[in-house]
């Protein structure tokens, strides 16, 4: 994991002092709320339905035990005992008092954390693959470049007042777990011979206008990527629309300009950069940051573990959990564990202060002090020895953290919805919980296999409904909540926007409709190996439409 040097520590300290001053000036009335807004927003402070919300940055989802313990302490001391993991791999606190926020930021700084640029029209937290550094299907670890991008984008003086927020994701595996094609900029790391570089995708996004990104450059060598990003950002800052908030994201600029012309503008800007304008990132600096992400000291182990096999034979619940929540590791005898924050009828993505403490303890005891937050709102322990897995499981189970549903139908992405958010048109959490109840039988759920349901309570799509295999969007019809269902969306390397299948349904009709869709899939799949999303791609949406709306 990256550790701050004196510069990083100084910058974060100066930010805490600066924000303390800004809050004091706001509380004294010296600055108006309208002028305070961008200042608090660039520090992750939102005014929500009930209170201020503080969003803390977790760069590329990376935590360790000390950071997780601090997040636990903040939940206990300043909030109501829990935190909410977000689809941006961050954590949000919903009940923090404005006057306390400078103190929270000071506590965060003690563990090398901050809330810088977690909101506002600036470059947000860079996100990545939550299995980075552990998964066998990556060509390299993407985290060093996420860290370099984090530093470059922090307080960038030219790009602090963009037309709209800006999100960058980096992936280095063959399977895209970072959803790069639905980001403002998505970077896929590739190698040409020994040369490391990036495929650059621009203009993806969700919200009101879901768009899959256009690839504007097949290969930018790693040493040039920051300069290339500066060119993309400058074109966006100068030419992105500012007349309409809903047309201000870079995806609209790319679409309205046309991907070819947009690419030409970027290439023209890039070619015009003079030597004196280049960032000139020293190779020693790339090497320095890479060194922080050297693999931990794995032991030589066999592929299989007797202790693990014995425990599975003795404890069926453990065996079941391991069949669902593990991801292969690049080192023999190790695995990556997903801790699901989606218990049946729970609050998706929420963790209590004591659960956070348990996760910290496990990472420290068994997991090389490494913890990740995923964009699906779960937590990962990326490096666990199979020999230790049963111990890990028992502690998780005791803390209510052993739900066996990773990537299954009850592992949904759900936005806070009308229960918390002042943008929402409809509730999301209860709908998700009611669907979960339909699929609560593990045998039924596992028979269905991998299936992502994503739920948003409004058109802003924080619940990523456009890219859910089944997407559910809450809409308001004359004061009543209705839900629009779409099928076939996905956020990976085959990214696609889901297709709406018919008229919106009433709240109470949604769980039944989802069950009809799922049972239709089970009837029509060629074999059990054909996943839901593959069946939808083969069959189109018609058989599902017919099954739901035939009675009309």
């Amino acid at each position: 994991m990256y550790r701050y040097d004196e510069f990083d520590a100084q910058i974060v300290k100066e930010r805490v002092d600066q924000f303390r001053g800004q809050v004091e000036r706001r509380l004294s009335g010296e600055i108006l709320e309208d002028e305070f807004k961008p200042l608090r927003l660039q520090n992750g402070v939102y005014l929500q339905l009930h209170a201020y919300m503080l969003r803390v940055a977790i760069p590329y989802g990376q935590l360790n035990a000390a950071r997780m313990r601090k997040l636990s302490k903040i939940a206990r001391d300043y909030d109501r005992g829990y935190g909410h993991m977000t689809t941006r791999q961050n954590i949000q606190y919903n009940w923090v008092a404005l006057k306390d926020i400078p103190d929270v930021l000071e506590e965060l700084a003690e563990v090398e954390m901050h809330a810088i640029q977690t909101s506002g029209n600036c470059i947000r937290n860079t996100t990545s693959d939550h299995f980075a550094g552990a998964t066998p299907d990556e060509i390299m670890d993407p985290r060093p470049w996420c860290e370099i991008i984090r530093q470059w984008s922090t307080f960038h003086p030219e790009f602090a007042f963009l037309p709209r927020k800006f999100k960058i994701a980096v992936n280095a595996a063959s399977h895209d777990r970072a959803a790069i094609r639905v980001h403002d900029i998505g970077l896929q790391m590739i190698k040409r011979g020994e040369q490391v570089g990036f495929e650059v995708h621009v203009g993806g996004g969700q919200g009101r206008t879901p768009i899959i990104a256009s690839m504007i450059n097949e290969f930018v060598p790693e040493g040039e990527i920051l300069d290339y990003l500066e060119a993309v950002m400058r074109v966006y800052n100068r030419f992105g629309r500012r007349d309409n908030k809903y047309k201000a994201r870079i995806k609209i600029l790319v679409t309205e300009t046309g991907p070819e012309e947009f690419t030409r503008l970027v290439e023209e800007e890039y070619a015009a950069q003079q030597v004196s304008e280049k960032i000139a990132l020293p190779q020693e600096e790339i090497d320095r940051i890479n060194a922080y992400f050297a693999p931990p000291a794995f032991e030589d182990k066999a592929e299989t573990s007797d202790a693990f096999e014995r425990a599975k034979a003795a404890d069926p619940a453990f065996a079941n959990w391991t069949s669902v929540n593990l991801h292969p590791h690049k080192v023999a005898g190790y695995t990556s564990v997903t801790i699901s924050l989606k218990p049946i009828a729970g609050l998706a993505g929420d963790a209590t202060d004591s659960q956070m403490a348990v996760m910290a303890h496990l990472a420290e005891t068994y997991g090389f002090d490494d913890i990740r937050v995923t964009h699906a709102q779960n937590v990962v322990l990326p490096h666990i020895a199979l020999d230790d897995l049963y111990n890990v499981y028992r502690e998780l189970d005791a803390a209510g953290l052993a739900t066996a549903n990773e990537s299954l139908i009850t592992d949904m992405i759900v936005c806070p919805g009308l229960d918390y958010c002042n943008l929402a048109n409809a509730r999301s959490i209860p709908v998700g919980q009611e669907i979960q109840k339909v699929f609560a039988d593990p045998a039924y759920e596992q028979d269905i296999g991998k299936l992502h349901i994503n739920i948003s309570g409004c058109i802003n799509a924080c619940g990523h409904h456009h890219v859910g295999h089944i997407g559910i969007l809450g809409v308001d019809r004359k004061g009543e909540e209705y839900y629009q269902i779409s099928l076939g969306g996905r956020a990976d390397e085959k990214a696609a926007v889901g297709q709406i299948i018919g008229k919106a349904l009433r709240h109470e009709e949604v769980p039944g409709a989802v069950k009809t869709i799922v049972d239709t899939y089970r009837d029509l799949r060629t074999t059990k190996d054909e996943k839901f999303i593959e069946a939808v791609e083969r069959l189109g949406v018609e058989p599902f439409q017919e099954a739901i709306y035939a009675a009309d």
Partner: protein
Amino acid sequence: MPLIKDGAEIEDTWTFLEGDNDLPSSGCITLPLDKLIENADALLARNQQIGVRLSPADDPHVLTPYIDRITLIAINFPKYTDGRGYSQAQLLRRRLGYTGELRAVGHVLRDQILYMNRSGFDAYQTSRADLPNVVKALEEYSAFYQPAADGQTSVFSRRHTKA
């Protein structure tokens, strides 16, 4: 409205000419970009200081032929949330080599001034921040990750420069 430059409040000796007024033949005048271009030959032939005021959508590259003759470029921020002026400033300083006064005008707030300074501005016309506050705003950070127009060495480089 107070004008702050180089850590001091100074008198504004420039007049901004909008509309179809006749151009005075003496004094320091600032014109909108289109008006400057329209009258460039006549104006630049005079022994008079010439300034220009850019609106957010203006392309600074248009100033290339006159860049050595202009002594004031004012960049207008109609709303502080419109950040195009930062790119205009960086282009003027770093690509076009402009060395005269670069003044932020319009909705200029205390907490934007550091970003402005880093982007190449050296003068701020503002009613929303007094001199002590502007000076303080410019001193809030001692290290910057990325190079910009203020000539500061980036943290990326400082880490590898032997003291």
